[in-house]
């Protein structure tokens, strides 16, 4: 069995927690969120030499992409096999998922990293390989769209103000 690199070992608990939280907020399913967190961390580990300096934003970007993909697959599957009526879903999460699908790809990434993962703008910029200004503009537009979509007004919206 391959030995875990010491620097990765140190950051692992925090990386795991944040990756799992992000996946869970988006998907709301424990098993799926845990699996995606592991996958994201494995991909981060694979590129550790390159991404060690901004490991958290990188791992969160990966887990975000994986979660959105999973959501898309699930959405597709639901068309074929509707979710049983007994399954309960948090209405806020349903709104968030719907809103995420409405956002353009770039804005969606920025919004998730900035407001779901709570990363500072500089780290979002590092994760996405763009400037802080770009992050600001995408975040602002994405937020405006989210405000429009997340109706009726919920507690989450108040927090954006």
């Amino acid at each position, binding site marked *: *069995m*391959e030995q*875990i690199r010491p620097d990765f*070992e140190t950051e*692992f*608990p925090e990386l*795991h*927690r944040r990756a*799992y*939280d992000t996946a*869970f*907020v988006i998907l*709301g399913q*424990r098993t799926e*969120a*845990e699996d995606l967190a*592991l*996958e994201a*961390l*494995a*991909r981060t*580990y*694979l590129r550790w030499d390159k991404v060690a300096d901004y490991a958290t934003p990188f791992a969160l970007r990966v887990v975000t992409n994986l979660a959105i993909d999973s959501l898309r697959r699930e959405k597709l599957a639901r068309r074929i096999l509707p979710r049983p009526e007994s399954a309960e879903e*948090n209405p*806020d*999460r349903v709104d*968030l998922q719907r809103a995420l699908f409405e956002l353009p790809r770039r804005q969606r990434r920025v919004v998730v990293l900035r*407001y*779901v*993962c*709570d990363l500072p703008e500089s780290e979002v910029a590092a994760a996405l390989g763009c400037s802080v200004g770009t992050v600001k503009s995408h975040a602002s537009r994405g937020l405006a769209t989210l405000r429009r979509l997340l109706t009726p007004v919920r*507690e*989450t919206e108040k*927090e*954006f103000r």
Partner: protein
Amino acid sequence: MKFQHLLDPDPPRPTDETRHAVVSRAGRLRRQRKFARAVSAIACSLAVVLTLVLLLQPSSSPSRLFKLGPPYRISVTLSAKTFPLSTYPDAPIYPPPVLVGASDDWSGCPALLGVVASVRPQAQLVARLLDQLGRDKLSALKASDPSYWPIILEGNWARFQDVSPGRLLIMSAAQSGYVSLLGRCSPATVRDTWVAKTCPGPSLKPASETCSRDPALAGQVFLIDRHGHWLVDFTYP
């Protein structure tokens, strides 16, 4: 986190098992990527080799439909008035025409030698044939039956260039309404001849509509199938 209320109240704690699962997945991903890179390299090499092979192949041979087998020479250079049968090449695809009547007006019919009562030719095939007919004199000779050659050699043959398959209507000679143009040719000739109408275009409207709206702008191309080779034996106008 802005979505605090959506967090899992009891998130899993990472254990040693989780760590090892991550490293093991990373190893699997690494192997998968190596394999994908190897496959991609092989595919690229094959593509390069295939491209080189295709590029280096001689491209002089025309499409199979028009390939004549041995390189028959077509060297008739006489005018319509003096067009003795002896000048026709000795090729099974191009037998001398049947001369009907003897006058200054050309009245040759295609010989029925090797002509088969073929199925309706496809529009793409006819479009290619018309393209060949419109290219130059030698191509036109190759694309046509010897009964049409005097017209080509006088330089007055019809050139239907850039006719797209969608502008063609193909029907039997009897259905075309132009059967009388086959004149004194035999009933068998009429039976085995197909007519391709070239309808005016380009247009979004179907060929049948533009042909019936502007019949004067439509062209008629008469075709026969000899030994599997489609040949133009008459055109109008």
